[in-house]
């Protein structure tokens, strides 16, 4: 019965489609597991680097007594960071909506926090702080941008009429916020928290990589990496994925319960937008301030914490390290060489990942069965902490260039695919009906309506992919290839070359920000020409 409907092009009732999709997913997972088991048993991949699921579970059972302290340590760091990061993010989001100028000024800080590869910050945090603090900070940073933008989106996309009705009774900004915006932003904030949860776990594990502390899944992972026991590594990866997945699931559940009540009853009518009168001088000042603020922030933070100058490099100290001191030439040379290795890998990996994601997303429109069966798998994979994946790929693919590419492609592919497929599926039926009424086939519909309408999502997923690609490359370099910025970071950590640790961190953040801004620039150009606005 199920196969019959799968093969036939007839429209199928929605309810049955959903049920069948779930069944299909289950079946696909089943097939995947069986294949994996066979491949593992026969030691087909890199001589046993991909153990069978049964072997992994067996090993997990044997190692089980080792796990609790590591799991608790990671959960502790991740959850404290999650609470702090999200509290700050929601407060910041509210501030940015109430006073838009603050949002524009904080833009530099926000993007830097979003784009910074956590792994670059990890050594700095470990040398500056002690105990749980680095993990908490990285977990908090992992949550901040996502929840902050979800809050801003939710608050500012509140139904105009709900705001009007409060304002019509003389309600001020606070009243509008309290009575209309906060509650209506709740679903958006919750979906932000849902994505932030696995990020917090990832952040905590990355901080654990940097050292400092005996317990934590990251510590366990690094410790087990050299011993060549694939089944144990897979077990640790599985545990990390499980924690992240549970956190994701918990917030999905809360969100599903709450969104039912606040789903809009009618379509919102858009208010007429007015072009803002712009003073050139004022605009320039705001942009400059938003660029300067992250540096100021960095400086003030170090000053306030009173970290010794040898360890904590302020912007001028870093400038001296790179340009004025006698070793500057060597330092710069090392940095440039590493950059030359990292940059091409990042760009190629990102391009391949995005192209692959786009192709599959388009394919999923033409053959919706793919989405129904594959999307849940993709969503689960998205919650999988990147770091858990990396050592496994290293085991399977060795330590060459291909491992970097694989890691970069895989970290950019999944989130990009999810965003693009969602964008493509949001294209309205009515818009598709017009070409269809003139007899356009699926390909023509795709070209005329679906692809142009989903452009904002293509850009959104590119923006999302930029920092992830760099992070993926750096993790691979750190753990596997011994080249590029990631390796330089790891080496400098060993040599206690604090200047270089800071230099790599700053360069990788700048690189990420520049890439991100480049995408935003192109996005604004293209979308505004087409009268579209960016998707979040």
């Amino acid at each position, binding site marked *: 019965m199920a196969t019959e409907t799968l093969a036939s092009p007839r429209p199928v009732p929605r309810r049955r489609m959903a049920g069948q999709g779930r069944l299909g997913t289950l079946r696909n997972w089943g097939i995947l597991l069986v294949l994996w088991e066979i491949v593992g048993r026969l030691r087909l991949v890199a001589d046993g680097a991909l153990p069978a699921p049964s072997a992994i579970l067996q090993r997990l059972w044997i190692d089980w007594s080792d796990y609790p302290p590591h799991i608790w340590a990671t959960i502790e760091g991740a959850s404290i960071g999650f609470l702090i990061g999200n509290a700050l993010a929601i407060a910041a989001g509210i501030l940015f909506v109430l006073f838009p100028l603050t949002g524009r000024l904080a833009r530099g800080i926000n993007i830097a926090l979003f784009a910074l590869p956590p792994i670059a910050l990890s050594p700095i945090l470990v040398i500056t702080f002690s105990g749980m603090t680095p993990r908490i900070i990285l977990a908090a940073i992992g949550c901040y941008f996502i929840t902050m933008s979800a809050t801003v989106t939710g608050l500012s996309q509140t139904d105009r*009429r709900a705001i*009007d*009705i409060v304002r*019509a*009774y003389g*309600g001020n900004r606070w009243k509008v916020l309290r*009575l209309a915006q906060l509650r209506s932003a709740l679903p958006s904030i919750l979906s932000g928290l849902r994505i932030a949860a696995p990020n917090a776990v990832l952040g905590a594990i990355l901080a654990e990589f940097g050292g400092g502390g005996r317990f934590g899944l990251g510590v366990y992972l690094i410790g087990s990496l050299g011993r060549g026991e694939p089944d144990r590594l897979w077990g640790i990866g599985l545990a990390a994925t499980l924690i992240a997945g549970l956190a994701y699931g918990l917030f999905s559940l809360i969100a599903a319960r709450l969104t039912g009540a606040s789903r809009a*009853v*009618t379509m919102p009518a858009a208010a*007429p937008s007015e072009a803002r009168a712009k003073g050139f001088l004022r605009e320039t000042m705001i942009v400059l301030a938003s660029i300067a603020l992250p540096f100021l922030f960095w400086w003030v933070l170090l000053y306030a914490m009173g970290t010794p100058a040898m360890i904590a490099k302020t912007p001028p100290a870093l400038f001296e390290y790179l340009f004025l001191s006698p070793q500057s030439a060597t330092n710069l040379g090392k940095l440039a060489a590493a950059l030359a290795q990292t940059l091409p890998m990042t760009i190629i990996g990102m391009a391949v990942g995005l192209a692959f994601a786009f192709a599959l997303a388009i394919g999923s429109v033409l053959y919706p069965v793919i989405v129904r069966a594959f999307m849940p798998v993709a969503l689960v994979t998205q919650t999988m902490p990147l770091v858990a994946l990396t050592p496994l790929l290293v085991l399977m693919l060795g330590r060459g260039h291909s491992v970097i590419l694989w890691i970069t492609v895989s970290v950019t592919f999944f989130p990009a695919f999810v965003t693009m497929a969602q964008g493509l599926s949001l294209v309205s039926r009515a818009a598709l009906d017009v070409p269809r009424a003139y007899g356009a086939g699926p390909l023509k519909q795709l070209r005329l309506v679906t692809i142009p309408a989903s452009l904002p999502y293509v850009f959104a997923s590119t923006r999302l992919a930029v920092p992830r690609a760099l992070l993926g490359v750096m993790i691979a370099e750190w753990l596997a290839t011994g080249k590029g910025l990631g390796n330089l970071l790891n080496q400098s950590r060993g040599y206690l070359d604090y200047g270089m640790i800071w230099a790599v961190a700053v360069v990788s953040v700048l690189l990420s920000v520049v890439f991100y801004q480049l995408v935003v620039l192109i996005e604004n150009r293209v979308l505004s020409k087409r009268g579209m606005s960016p998707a979040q």
Partner: protein
Amino acid sequence: MTDRAGIRISRVSRVFEGRGATVQALDDVSLECPAGSFTALIGPSGCGKSTMLRLALGLDHPNDGEIRIGGLEPLAAARQGLTGVAFQDAALMPWRTVEDNIMLPLDVLDKKRGAFRAKVDELVDMVGLSGFEKALPGELSGGMRQRAAIARALVTTPDVLFLDEPFGALDQILRRQMNIELQRIWMESNATTLLVTHGIDEAIFLADRVVVMQSRPGRIGQVIDIPFARPRQSAIFSDPQFHALEAEIAGALDGH
């Protein structure tokens, strides 16, 4: 001078600067609504009738001219609880129950909910929503949501009532029923009412006078008095005089 309950719009202009295009939404518009009167604003899309309402509610500000609600600035009047408003599409908050939605203006105006208990019950009863006090808007039909919005507009016992196409989303049959109910509610409340509408028959049935607006630039074309005695029965929809007025307004809308 207008008394406490009147609306006075004098020489108001409002210009919207869009991308490249400038839209004169209102050009030197003056209108006076005496206390207790029922005025309907009708006109083609883009003639500025909704803009006028938003200005009167203090949601937007004119480039020129002034608006007084009972002698006060619109926002000041709103803060004193003088005004009530019902928007197109009900605009209920989907997460509040019917009762909570009706009491929203009390929350905005910082009034004690307890003191309005009886008033809310009476309004729920009057708009025929008894038994649905705890329902969420999503569980109601379009007509019921609209009635909840009317009840919300009346909860503060406003002296001035603004209705922005309150039945625009309803079908013709339901609309007529709601018109009859609105007339009854209005006659009990005695509020000065300004109704923005697309429906010629709705305007004639409800209003003391119909203000016909024209677009580009938005301005008042003609003011037509409606002589029917109140309470008006649904029979007047088929009265020859009603048809004559319909024809007159349709003519005015075409710019004759």
